[in-house]
């Protein structure tokens, strides 16, 4: 495209195509993550100001029904209908329903966020979901992706599932867990401890502190801490003595200044020659000033690990981390925007992984997310922890509070209906409620 600005129309076109037409066969490997892709599509359109409100009611309702169809009878969601059996298969086996293909944590998170666009959160069976979520936590505080019929928690012990668990908890219980539900709550302290242990010697976070620091895992850890309100107050970060920051005030991160150093180090200057050379031989030589000068046409990309190449998605994972720990001002948006706009933005809309790559849903969303984190005009204000617009976060916040309002049953002409306690017509409706039908009253007496 050649110009350093967001071509909103073209991006909207790209995302509408993703929404309306079949994805190419190459996407088959994402068959288990269709809910994730679905969320990216709905949220990208929202960020671009062309969200689901532009669709006819019927289409919105259909999307909602599809998401709800992926809800697992035992709580949580499946990643696509390929993991969800017809209802009749989930027979009761005495201690609950047969598991079939288990619900999946990433799918659950993305389903909840997606319902925020097209439905309501009270359509989620939240008690079942929260109880299921608790079963995914391991003794070391980490979470798995799903749990098998034999009770085995599957999936890595890394920070991804911690983030997803923290986010699902945020969406379903709010910031305050009620006393009544505390017994079903996950062990937050253990999770924070686990995340704290994941920091590596070079300051980043990995799937465990024994492995190589990675920007994706780092994002998941920081966003989880952010959702649990366990990030340090930005004003307490000390820049004078990196690596020796006081740990007392840093609940979730052992070494915050080391973290800042690691994050800013992910920025790399992108030069076209890089693509041709396998390795930078220049690194062995003394630095020349010409090579290091910054000028108007310079591109800055982000890598996910030390000495790797720039990739669109890390522009988000890293800028979001800096933003969440209150250090967003440590980066200079200009050259980063230039890299995204002139190197990875595609002429048909969307973003590719690296310069010259075709666009794909994942990188296209995270490209927008990176720009939104840096407050790009033309995109809605953004919440990096939930990776959605602030407007949508506020909507979710209202929905989750609404979902907590109890509903009561009333009877009319022999049928039962339910009404929420905060409905303006609640008092009147309940007063007008008929007695339940005779046979139900009798049946209840027998039970007692």
């Amino acid at each position, binding site marked *: 495209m050649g110009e350093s600005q967001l071509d909103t129309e073209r991006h909207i076109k790209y995302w509408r195509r993703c929404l309306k037409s079949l994805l190419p066969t190459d*996407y088959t490997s994402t068959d288990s993550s269709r809910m994730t892709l679905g969320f990216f599509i709905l949220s990208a359109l929202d960020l671009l100001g062309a969200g689901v409100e532009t669709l006819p009611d019927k289409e919105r309702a259909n999307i909602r029904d599809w998401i709800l169809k992926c809800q697992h009878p035992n709580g949580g969601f499946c990643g696509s209908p390929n993991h969800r059996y017809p209802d009749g*298969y989930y027979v009761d086996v005495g201690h609950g329903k047969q598991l079939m293909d*288990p619900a999946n944590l990433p799918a659950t998170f993305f389903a909840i966020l997606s319902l925020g666009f097209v439905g309501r959160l009270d359509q989620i069976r939240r008690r079942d979901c929260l109880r299921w979520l608790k079963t995914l936590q391991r003794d070391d505080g980490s979470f798995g992706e799903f749990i*098998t019929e034999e009770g085995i928690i599957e999936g890595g012990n890394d920070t991804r599932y911690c983030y997803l668990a923290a986010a699902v908890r945020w969406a379903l219980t709010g910031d305050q867990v009620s006393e009544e539900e505390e017994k079903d709550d996950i062990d937050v302290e253990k999770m924070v401890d686990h995340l704290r242990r994941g920091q590596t*010697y070079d*300051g980043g976070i990995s799937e465990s502190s024994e492995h190589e620091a990675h920007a994706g895992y780092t994002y998941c850890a920081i966003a989880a801490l952010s959702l649990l309100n366990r990030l340090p107050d930005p004003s307490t970060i000390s820049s004078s003595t990196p690596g020796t920051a006081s740990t007392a005030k840093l609940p979730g991160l052992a070494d915050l200044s*080391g973290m800042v150093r690691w994050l800013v180090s992910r920025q790399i200057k992108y030069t076209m020659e890089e693509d041709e050379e396998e390795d930078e031989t220049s690194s062995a030589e003394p630095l020349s000033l010409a090579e290091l000068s910054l000028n108007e046409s310079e591109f800055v990309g982000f890598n996910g690990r030390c000495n790797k190449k720039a990739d669109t998605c890390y522009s988000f994972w890293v800028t979001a981390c800096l933003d969440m720990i209150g250090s967003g001002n440590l980066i200079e948006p200009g050259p980063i925007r230039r890299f995204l706009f002139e190197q990875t933005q595609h002429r048909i809309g969307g973003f590719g992984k690296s310069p010259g790559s075709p666009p794909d849903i994942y990188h296209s969303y995270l490209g927008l997310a990176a720009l939104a984190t840096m407050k790009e005009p033309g995109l809605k204000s953004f919440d990096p922890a939930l990776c959605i617009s602030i407007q949508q976060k506020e909507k979710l916040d209202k929905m989750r509070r609404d979902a907590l309002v109890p509903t009561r049953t009333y009877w009319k002409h022999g049928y039962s209906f339910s009404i929420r306690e905060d409905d303006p017509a609640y008092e009147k409706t309940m007063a007008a409620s008929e007695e339940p039908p005779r046979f139900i009253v009798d049946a209840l007496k027998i039970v007692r």
Partner: protein
Amino acid sequence: MGKYEGNPVWDDVVPIPQDDGEGALAQIAYTDEYAEAMGYLRAIMAAKEYSPRVLDLTEHIISMNAAHYTVWLYRASTLRALNTPIDKELSWMNEVALQNQKNYQIWHHRQILIDQLYPSISSDPAAIQALADSELAFMTQMFDEDSKNYHVWSYRQYLVRKLGLFNSPAELKSVENLLRKDIRNNSAWSHRFFLVFCNPEYSTPDSKATEYDARIPDAIVDRELAFAQAATFEAPQNQSPWNYIRGVLRKGGRKLSSVEQFAGEFVTLPEDDSAEDVKSSHALDFLAEAWSEEGKTEKADHALRLLADKYDRIRKNYWDWRRAPLKEKTSK
């Protein structure tokens, strides 16, 4: 007619096709072959059938979509039920892994298999060594394709713990070989840090990577410093060994200033007006921190200013931020 429909081997199975309906998000143009095979897998899973034909079916689906986690899980259960020899499965997986470089499930499946195999060889050091050797050979093959493959390194850390390979000469040697090929391979540096500082023989269990460990012998700290320092001379602008040095110093409870002289080899800042000589921005950063540690605020500030304005301008805001508290100190 597909591969399964009309095939006498599968005659007894009624497939359960995916029910997408209207409003489906992210619908994929599946090939007929994939859609059919998935329908049969769903039927097999519903019937809880664990038979040899399940291995064929799962292999077929994996060849089309190696990221479908339930397929792998179901395959693992079937292997267990049929008591299939694990080495056979491992060698089949080698092929799949080579064809699917970026796949997580394969490595998870491999861990499940090793967990299953391990009890039968745990008391036989020769068998453990043989397994370690063959796994190392395979990982070396994977690293020939991509020496920074995250899943393979993850699996490798798992294997080191599982088989107790911390003191295996082959393990450290192989990491050194990878670094000899590419001194900028940060995955290899990370693995070395793990091998050295998580070795249960002399490290404190559960000591965090970011904290001092009093049990680490001085000789180990010295050896690791020397190793990383040699690498910085080879490529001064390679950040990996600089990070490694910081990590080693922290584990050893030593100050950055303890290796100030070494870092000074890359930086000359004359007292007079003559031009400075900087061979590595990382050395300059290192010295700035060491000087700040020692209270030499003016020198530290000078180094940070050079980084901000000249040697590492893409991080200017960061270096300026680092300068701010130094200015406060100077003005006090």
